[in-house]
Structure formats: structure tokens, C-alpha cells
């Protein structure tokens, strides 16, 4: 078992504004641990991008344990999440490898990082909700006071934000890159696999776990080898 990042620097006040690591986060860490030596290390990733880094727990975990010269870029629309991500990296002594950027998904990183993402990490807002509840860049830019809904409200099928990122994978990912995504059964993983096959990506479920009512899974996407 690899050590989980130390999160003692984060307070109840932080968790009023950012997502507190929970079962989905820990499943994500377990899946990355599972893939660490066989999938991640051999790729010797240059750039790992985490979208919606929240507390920074996931990128920090990878930076702590993946012994490769990798840059960890993280994005979040929530300024509190960006500072929490940096604090978590600092607390766990990987701050020199991790760079938070406040933005909407990947905005501002393209076209520079086109085809350059070796590892992509995304724990999206996956809970099915009314579309109106989904937080957009516009809300975040004009009223950053309450962005907690951005951590979970996923709109129709819980897929509104997820699909925006999945459709970008062909543009984002390096030829040998791998993208990891947290999914719920309600997000219709089979439908996602079909959609991604059309875009030239294979989907593998790395790990599944039931947490209360949530049937969580971690999916990995890589380019189909012709």
C-alpha cells in the first residue's frame, strides 16, 4: 500500500469551498497504484494534466510515488482549489513538480499542449442533476464565492462535463498517453466505450467499488492500436 498524501493542512473551512477527498478519490488512488508499475512508469510521462484538481490529492499522490521526471499541471475553476492543490503538494514535498492553473478544464493550455498529455486525470462532477446546476466558466468568473456544486453537479446522466473532456481526448493525448476517469454506473459506461471507440480510444475499467449507493469505477482510455 502506497502512502496517501498528508492532508492535515486542510481545514473544515477549506472543505466548505472545495471537495473533501472521499470514496471516489480513494478509489482513484487505488487504481493509480494498481497501474503504477505496469502502465504508468514504463511510459515515463513528461506531462500529467489533472482537470479539476480540488484538494490536489490525486496529482500529489502520483507525484509522490511515480519515480519519473514528470511535470504535473493541474486546473480548476475554483481559486480555493488551486491554492489547496499547491498547499497539498507543498505539504507532501512535491511542490516543485506541480503547477496549478485556474481555468475551465483545459482552456488556455491548448494549442500548446496539443498531443502532449501523457497522463490525464479527471474526477469529474459525475452526479446526474438538472443541467442548470452545472457550474460553467461564466459562473466561476463572475461569482467564485460558492463553487462547491462544480465538484459534483454533472447534468444529464452526470455526463455534461465528462463528455466535454472525453471529446477532447483525440486532441489532447500524446500517442502513447493514458487518460483516467472516475465514472458511476449511472453515467452509462458502455455508451461511453462505444463513443470513445469511434474516436479511436479503447476503454478499460481498472477498478470498481460500491460506496453506499454509488457504483464507482475508474476507466482508463488509450489510443486503439491499429
Amino acid at each position, binding site marked *: 500500500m502506497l502512502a496517501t498524501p498528508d492532508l492535515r493542512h486542510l481545514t473544515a473551512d477549506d472543505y466548505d469551498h472545495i471537495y473533501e477527498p472521499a470514496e471516489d478519490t480513494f478509489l482513484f488512488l487505488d487504481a493509480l497504484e494498481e497501474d503504477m508499475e505496469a502502465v504508468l512508469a514504463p511510459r515515463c510521462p*513528461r506531462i500529467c494534466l489533472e482537470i479539476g484538481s480540488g484538494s490536489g490529492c490525486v496529482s500529489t499522490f502520483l507525484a509522490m510515488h511515480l519515480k519519473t521526471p514528470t511535470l504535473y499541471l493541474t486546473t480548476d475553476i475554483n481559486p480555493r482549489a488551486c491554492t489547496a492543490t499547491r498547499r497539498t503538494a507543498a505539504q507532501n514535498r512535491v511542490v516543485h513538480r506541480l503547477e496549478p492553473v485556474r481555468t*475551465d478544464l483545459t482552456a488556455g493550455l491548448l494549442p500548446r499542449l496539443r498531443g502532449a498529455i501523457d497522463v490525464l486525470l479527471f474526477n469529474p462532477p459525475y452526479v446526474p442533476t438538472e443541467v442548470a446546476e452545472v457550474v*460553467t466558466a461564466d459562473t466561476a468568473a463572475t461569482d467564485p464565492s460558492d463553487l462547491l456544486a462544480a465538484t459534483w453537479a454533472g447534468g444529464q446522466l452526470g455526463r455534461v462535463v465528462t463528455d466535454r473532456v472525453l471529446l477532447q481526448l483525440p486532441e489532447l493525448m500524446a500517442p502513447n498517453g493514458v487518460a483516467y476517469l472516475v465514472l458511476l454506473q449511472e453515467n452509462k459506461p458502455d455508451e461511453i466505450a462505444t463513443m470513445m471507440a469511434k474516436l479511436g480510444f479503447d476503454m478499460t475499467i481498472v477498478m470498481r467499488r460500491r460506496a453506499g449507493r454509488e457504483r464507482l469505477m475508474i476507466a482508463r482510455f488509450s489510443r486503439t492500436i491499429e
Partner: protein
Amino acid sequence: MVRLLTHNMLQCHVKNCTNGFPLRFHDPIIEQHEQEINKEFLVNMLPRIDWNALRTTVDQLGLPELPAAVPENPAEDEAFLAALHRALMEVNIQSGSMVCPECEHVYPIRDGIPNMLLSEDEV
């Protein structure tokens, strides 16, 4: 603490702006944070660096000049790696903003974090 490494990967994304790179620092508060050099990391990162943009930015900030081109064997060029390390990893922009060279959109830097968010009418 926007490092020039990160800055080198950011581009203006205002609608119809096509040439917003590299962003120009405006009123930067520059700090130098000494850090242990990791040559493997630097060599690994080089293919992702836009060299001309880095040189332009270093020049704008009044920092020591970088060579005109990346040497043929950067991994064996100690002086080059040391200069690259100082520029990419040790220069930190603490506050100020980044301005698009084409459309002049201003991206603020707060708490050392670049803010690339646009409102919906700008996207």
C-alpha cells in the same frame, strides 16, 4: 509563483484570437527561489518548451539571456542546463498579470496562480 515553465504552456484563448503566445508579463513581481537541479527532468521537458517564446520572455523580464538555440547534446551541457534550470524553475512570478500580445486580453495572477478564465462572451 507562476514559473516560466508553466507560462511557456499558456496561450490566450479569447474567441478569434489566433496568435496569443507567448503572453507578456505586466507589472510582474519576480522572486527567485533556489531549488535543487534535476537534469533528467529538464532534459525530459525540453521537447515541450517553445524555445523562442522562453527567450523572448526572459528578455522581457530583464533576466540573463539564454543561448539562441538548444545545444545538440543538452544532457551533457552543464552550463546550458544550469541556465535553463534558473530560467524555467527558479524564476517565480508572484503577482501581476499576463497580457495577450495580439488581443491584449489581461490574465491576472493572484496568489501566484495564473487565472485563464474568460467569461462566456469572450470564449
